[in-house]
Each structure stands twice: as C-alpha cells, then as structure tokens.
C-alpha cells in the first residue's frame, strides 16, 4: 500500500549519517485535482529513527513537508553493521518502515 522507502546509513566523522527517502503525497488539503475537487489532506505525522532497536529521533511533521520527504539525521558515533530503522505513520494510519546496516 505505502510506496517504497530507501535509506542509506554511512559513517561520518564521529557520527552516523542517516539519509532516508519516503514515497508519500504529503497532500496539504488545499490542492485541487484536475476535476476541481479539493484533494483531502493526507500526510506523514510521525517519524521514528532507531539504532539497534533504541529510539534516537522522534519527529512530528505537517502537511508542509515536501512531497516524497527526504530527511538526513545524524547519530553520535556508531559502527559498521549498526542496524538503523526508520518508520512513519500518516494521517490515515498507514505506516511503513525501512531498515539498513551502517556501511
């Protein structure tokens, strides 16, 4: 149901760089479709970033985050092989998550 996500977790200088891409329309509720009808609001509201099962970042987001959201987060330290997991929940209760090992 939810479109694909993609994530890349790499080691930076003293931190782990997590870049995550999400497929989502992020509808504002103000846009009209081709027939002139308002498209109802539909957007990601919560995002959670975990490292090796432990939550490190919690985000609350609005309809004014751009379509197909792309986020970069940074986590202190880290080592190759750490499991990074990012998940989201949207206004319709849809969820998706992706997992990657730090490279």
């Amino acid at each position, binding site marked *: 149901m939810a479109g694909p996500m993609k994530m890349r977790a790499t080691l930076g200088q003293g*931190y782990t760089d997590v870049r995550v891409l999400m497929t989502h329309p*992020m509808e*504002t509720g*103000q*846009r*009209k479709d081709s027939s002139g009808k308002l498209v109802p609001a539909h957007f990601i*509201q*919560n995002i*959670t*970033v975990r*490292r090796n099962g*432990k*939550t*490190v*970042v*919690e*985000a*609350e*987001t*609005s*309809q*004014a*985050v*751009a*379509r197909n*959201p*792309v*986020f*970069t*987060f*940074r*986590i*202190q*330290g880290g080592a190759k092989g750490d499991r990074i997991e990012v998940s989201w*929940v949207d206004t319709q209760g849809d969820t998706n998550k992706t997992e990657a090992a730090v490279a």
Partner: protein
Amino acid sequence: MNAVRRLLLQGAGALAASLLAPLAALAAWNKEAFGAKTPADALKSLGVAGAQPSKDLLIEAPQIAENGAVVPIEIESRIPGTTSLTVLVEKNPFPLNSRFTFLEGALPFVKLNVKMGETSEVRVLAQAGGRYYSASQEIKVTIGGCGG
C-alpha cells in the same frame, strides 16, 4: 489518542510526565500547535516562551528558492544539551512545519525539504536545558508551493 497521552492531558504529576515524555512522543502529534494559524499561537500551544536569539543555532538554506513546493533547509544546534528542534515557516497558512525530538545518541541536526506558500521568515527553535533559543532566515520564493 493513546493512554499515555490521555494520562498526560489529565494532568499527571510532573515527575510522571518527564518520565513518560519520550514514550508519549512515539505517537503524539500536537494537533493544536500544528493547527495554529499564527506563529505566536503555534508557540503558545507548544509551551514555548521567551526564546533567546542564538548564534549557535545554524540554518543553511537558499536565500531565494525557485519553487516553494520544495525548499531544502538544513538546521543544526551547537547549543549543548539540545533536545529538540522546531521549524516554523512564518507566512504559511499553518506556520508550524515540523518538530524533532533528539533522544540520547542523536545529534541536533536535520536536513529536510519544506513547502513555502510565499516569501517568508523560516524560524528554528532549539530546546536546551529547559530553555528555548531561536534563529531565523528569510527565504524568497519565486513560485509558491502550497497549491500543489
């Protein structure tokens, strides 16, 4: 709304609230703050008062954006003990854009794309040691990005 949040809303003790806060964040979405139509109302709903301007709160963003549908911004706090970053696009119909809570291990840094309806100040608030700090940058927008 989950039980934790209900508990918080019912005014559980300060100790309980602080213990439960990270858990509550799991599914919490501050409807009142995100629904606020002015920056002042959004800040009030978030419980932010008396934010101090800070040079240690960095915003990297273009001065002029070709298209408001996608405006890249990068924010970073160098204020020790920063636990959250909040982004407001002041002239958007709903100014509160996003709010990031950093738990142990996370650096107060985030890069994202926001939508902007028109030229506006983009304000960032950092929370550290129970205080709020603020920085802002104007981004000019050539084509507004809230219609689609």
